[in-house]
């Protein structure tokens, strides 16, 4: 029986490839890097704990934005095994949609215009929610269209074809958006639906008046930071609930596990896939609006780097895993913020992508990932 005797040889071939003879060199290097990083962090924490905490908070803000994008990557990958590189550009479209809604149509002021009697605060909250909802809807429709036009015809094609198509769609959105009559190639100052205010903590919480100084060695944070934090946690909980407790969630898990069998069980797999794209895009749209409010300058390539970093976050957490994407994104945010503070600003992206390489070398399945049973 030649087949049987072949099998162990193939297996050992795989394991040999996974554990090269000089693995200890790489591992030793990693340990040295980890020790160095720990030393830098601990010594800086001891030197100025308040500044350290401030940097952690800034990293948390970045991480939560990445989390909103990473969820979309991981969900789509979980079901169709496609890395949807256009996801970062859907995020960009979300930011632009809200920009036009606010600057051209004053959508954030509609409650006040229709019902002048209601208090300004409530009007602002309702108006801002409308803007965010509109962006989410636009992104959802865009993602469904992209899925129909660019990915669905390639469902039975080799996976690399869909991947390259995704890159094509991404470039299309960036450079179509850069046309003068679409979004224009300029950096556009973003008009926020509400003003950002900041506070500092010193025996209580005090507001920072724009243009006035806050005391030294205090921790400051802004309202947009709180909104991003709350939004990403809520979205995470919502998706957990959706995937674990609802019928469509069961269908998603079934389609992810085994598409042909799911189809035999009466699940409309195509609709489930469209739904997955839609929900990922909706939260990318939400992330886009919040990102634009926080950083207030938008252009058509604004989605590239956050998109790539969210992708790294999804891989780090274990692509296909929802909690993994969230945890991975938080780690990425911290890595970036602490690199900027304690190593050097230009190193931030280098560190982010070094993490990707290390994860792929050491634990390709990521933190929460299940070991790949089939060839992934």
């Amino acid at each position, binding site marked *: 029986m030649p087949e049987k005797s072949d099998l162990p040889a193939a297996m050992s071939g795989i394991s040999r490839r996974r554990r090269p003879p000089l693995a200890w060199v790489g591992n030793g290097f990693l340990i040295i890097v980890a020790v160095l990083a720990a030393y830098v962090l601990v010594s800086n924490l001891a030197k100025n704990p308040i500044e350290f905490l401030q*940097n952690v908070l800034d990293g948390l803000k970045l991480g939560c934005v990445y989390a909103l994008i990473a969820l979309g990557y991981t969900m789509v990958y979980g079901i169709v095994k496609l890395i949807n590189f256009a996801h970062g550009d859907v995020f960009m479209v979300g930011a632009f949609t809200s920009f036009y809604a606010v600057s051209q149509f004053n959508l954030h002021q509609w409650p006040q215009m229709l019902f002048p009697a209601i208090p300004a605060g409530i009007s602002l909250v309702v108006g801002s929610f409308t803007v965010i909802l509109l962006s989410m809807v636009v992104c959802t429709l865009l993602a469904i269209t992209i899925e129909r036009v660019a990915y669905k015809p390639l469902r039975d094609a080799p996976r690399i074809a869909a991947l390259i198509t995704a890159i094509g769609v991404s470039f299309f959105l960036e450079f179509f958006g850069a046309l003068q009559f679409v979004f224009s190639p300029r950096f556009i100052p973003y008009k926020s639906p509400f003003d950002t205010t900041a506070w500092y903590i010193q025996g209580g919480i005090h507001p920072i008046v724009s243009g006035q100084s806050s005391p030294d060695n205090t921790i400051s944070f802004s309202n947009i930071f709180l909104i991003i934090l709350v939004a990403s946690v809520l979205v995470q909980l919502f998706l957990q609930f959706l995937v674990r407790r609802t019928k469509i969630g069961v269908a998603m898990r079934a389609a992810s596990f085994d598409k042909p069998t799911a189809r035999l069980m009466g699940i409309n797999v195509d609709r489930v896939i469209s739904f997955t794209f839609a929900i990922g895009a909706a939260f990318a749209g939400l992330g886009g609006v919040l990102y634009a409010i926080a950083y207030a300058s938008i252009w058509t390539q604004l989605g590239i780097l956050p998109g790539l970093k969210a992708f790294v976050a999804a891989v780090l957490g274990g692509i296909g895993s929802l909690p993994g994407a969230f945890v991975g994104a938080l780690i990425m945010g911290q890595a970036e913020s602490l690199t900027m503070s304690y190593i050097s600003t230009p190193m931030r992206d280098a560190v982010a992508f070094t993490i990707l390489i290390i994860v792929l070398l050491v634990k390709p399945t990521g933190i929460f990932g299940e070991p790949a049973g089939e060839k992934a």
Partner: protein
Amino acid sequence: MKRFLSLTAIVLVLMVAVIGCQQAPKVLKVAVLAPLSGPVPTFGVSTRDGALLAINEWNAKGGVLNMKITPVVEDSQCTPDPAVNAANKVINQDKVHYIVGEVCSKASIPISEIANAAKVIQISPTSTNTAVTVDKSGATKAYIFRACFIDPFQGKVGATFAFNNLKAKNAFIMFDQSNDYVKGLAEAFEATFTQLGGKIVGKESYDGAKDTDFSAILTKVKGAKPDIVYLPDYYNVVNLATKQAKAKGITAPFMGGDGWDSSDLDTKASDGGYYTNHYSPDDQRAEVQNFLKAYGAAYKDDKNNPKVPDALAALAYDATNLLLTAIKNAGADNTDKVKAAMEGISFDAVSGKITYDAQHNPVKGAVILKVTGGKVTFNSFVAP
């Protein structure tokens, strides 16, 4: 018959043209090479309008050396190839001896090679790259000049203003490591500021094309407590950084260069900031106010209101005036004499009193603008 008639007509027109030329030999041709199409057409229109205004004013006063000045306008597109074609056309076909242009350094540099070889005087109104007037071996191109200051000069002026006028003793520098313009300004600022006795309390770089989050740098700024933060980048980075600085409770004013000069500058976030620029319409010097009046009378906007000239128009106007004054001082339409006259000129231009250094860069002042109350206002004029 029709063909015969039209041929006759053409021949007649040509004859008139030839006779016309013979009868009035005293015409001085000046080429204006401007990017009227391509990526920056608005720059081109301003440049052409500024140059033509100066030529019309000289013609109204009787021209130069009793010669009428005829402009030859060509579109050089802010791109090397069309710029080279335009330069060859005006030099070989139109036989001009003087060129005003181009706007962009990357177009001005190839034009300067051709002009210098043909001993044609070129004066670029706005190209700031040092390679426009200096060749690869470091020698000055004899026939090439410019009307704007070069990049490092802005850093020098910024540092002088911060130290002397704002009484800043400690400065923090933020700069884009991948942008030569920003780096040049930052280095010049640092050198001058320390030379004057100030202290650089921190220096952080970033990548302006990619970075949007400056919180870690700004936390360091907050800790370093500078009197001024020098950020000589373009408006998009300035908008991001100043907004995040305000949210961190940083009150030290930000300062930059002409990259801030944009209608898209977030004046709320950058409130209290300063930047250096070539010219300001709010400057009360007589040269500026007379130029404003003349420009507004000659050019109208869509609503038929007088147009307010931008820095490009002002510099093109200055470049043309400098050239014609040098020709007048030289006393002859001879580029060697005009070149010598240019080198020795001292001229009160809209953008300040201009003299030339050995590398044909103008030695002149800059204006300091302040962002305050949602507007950009003229603060002061700093002599070199």
